């Protein structure tokens, strides 16, 4: 929670379905590759965007 009382849950609830799906996918991708410092997620993230808006 921040000073203005916002919570992570509120941020998620205010997102549309597509936005929420992409956000979850982005964090999954980044978390799975946290151990690889040389990994650049750009292409995987781009693919995730194209899956959501084909």
């Amino acid at each position, binding site marked *: *929670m*921040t*000073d203005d009382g*916002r*919570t*992570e*849950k509120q*941020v*998620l609830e*205010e*997102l*549309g379905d*597509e*936005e929420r799906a*992409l*956000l*979850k996918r*982005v*964090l*999954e991708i*980044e*978390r799975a590759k*946290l*151990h*690889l*410092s040389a990994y*650049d*997620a*750009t292409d995987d*993230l*781009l693919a995730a*965007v*194209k899956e*959501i*808006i084909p």
Partner: protein
Amino acid sequence: MRLQSITLTNFRQFEGVQTFDLTSDAIRPVSLLFGANGAGKTTFLNAFTWALHGAMSEDVEQQERMVSDSVWRALPIGQSVEVAVELRFDHEGRDYRLLRQASVHKQSDHQTRPSPELQLWMTAADGSSEVVRAPQETVYSILPRGVSRFFFFNGERIENLVKRGAYAEVQQDIKVLLDLEQVERALAHLPKVDRKLTAELKKHGGDKATEIQEAIDALRERETTDRDQLKLLEGDLAALTEERDAVLDVLRQHNETRPIQERRDAVARDLEDAKAALATAQAERQHLIATRGFLAFTESLGDTTQAMAESLYEKGKLPSPLKREFVDKLLKNGACICGTPLTEHSEPWLHVKDWRQKAGLQAVETAWQQLSGQIGPLATARVDLRESLSSLMTRINAQRDRVDRLIEEQSELDGKLRDSRREDVQALESKRIDLDTQLGIKQQRIGSVRSELDRLGRDIEQKTKERRTAEVTDELAAKARARSDLVQSVKKALEEILAIREEDMRRRLDAELKTVFRSITHQNHVPSLNRGFELTLHKDVDGVQLQVPKSTGENQILSLSFVAAVSKLAREIRKERRAEGEAPPDAGIYPIVMDAAFGSLDQDYQQAVSRALAQMAPQLVVLVSKSQGLGRVVTELMPYVSHLGVIETHTTAAGDVADDIEIEGVAHPYIRPASTDHSELKVIK
């Protein structure tokens, strides 16, 4: 991460292959190992960090002598010997076997630093097993190197965790533990994704969309440059602050300057307080003027209004106190209050009707009553305002005088150091002044870059809105725009999530730190973790929070409390509902391995720390000597111990060196004479 066992092979004092079981559960999370001085407690602790990260702490001497001395001596020149540490642990539903191993070739009697290889095997819950191809990176993702200092540490040196300057690093280190790292990485990668998408938009989007996109790109480029610059400036600021603080430390330690510098420190603290008190009083005055200031101009208003109203009455311009409703009732009833019948169109009827025109409405009368009712209290409110303002002005003037006085004193103290007869003192003070000037310049530049970044952010948002409504006829371009909008929204949400998580992390660490610290110490001192991630200690003196210097003992307790807080938070955070979805049941679990857990703490603290330790982490390995660990410590910890052991010292020292350790009424070998110096891990239970 939960430790299962450790196996040492020819690892320093531990010759041959020696294993210690570390499996534990929630009821008995503690493994307790006793060892005499030099037995190898520090080596045992360092075996974990060497296995995980390939490094030992700086206090381990002669780090190139990894192979047990007796084994090395017995090894013929030209042959090789193995040194290794194997660690078994589980993490987030998977079992791991980690082996750091080196084959050391003997070319002379002197050992050279080995180059170990790391291997890692993973077994999933379904029984499938595989070799991990990026072993070190995987270990870093489980337990980042910087973080290991919170979980594998020497109790006597733990206070280093809370030393000045350590916290910027600490803040960075715990990001992985507290689930911030992946958000930061996503925020670094999403702009790259967006650039690829907007390139398509520019290619197919038509003149208007292309023009807007080019403007956005230009703004983003400036944003990136400014962000880089801000990072550099903040780095410079931190370095300059550290340098300035180091100079101040020298001035504090210097015999000649100590009293002056100590006074200057006190004056600086008072000055900060005085400035804060002045700002508060000024803000109160501002509020008072904004909400009640108009009253000051109402002195003649009441009298004027009253006089004006009466004059209007007299002139008949204001309705008389007679109510129109009353006249209407008389006309309707057909009788005056004096008894005269009021027959329609008769003279009395016409007379009364005439009064109707002069009569006032009830509503107008009520409004007038209310207004005249408020004229009186205006005078009282004005007196109140005058008194409140006067008391505030007294406060403001007093604080102004205090600030002026402290600035004068500060200047006087500065002058004493600047004009000191000693050249070294003069040089230190000029350096301090120079560094303070540089710090001021950096702070100004940071401020201007931040406001520039704010402006750029607003401009980008505006342009993105324009882009959303710009006409795009090409289907590919429309899709690229929709995708870019999606990426932008997600990036914005992630930025907010990061800010929420960072603030949440600090607040919760602060609260937990206070709880653990309170449970250990008997002093009325309260720790706080501020927004800059600095750890300070305060005491309450008549409602005023005063910063207190931290003693070594307190620093140790603070560090332990901080470790406990980090450990607890890491577990809690993974259990909560988060953007990533469900976490594995054992996520965020880390063991704590501590050598000399009680450092140089006195008996009372040892007992309190032991009690806190058992609740501190889901798994705990404690290494202690007889003098540190027997008595209250054993009494407190024993109910939680699942594995008890002794690192038995075998020594070639002459004389009657043999010693035993008595635990729960049973004597166990502690030190034994031997033909070679080495240590053995012995399991008691």
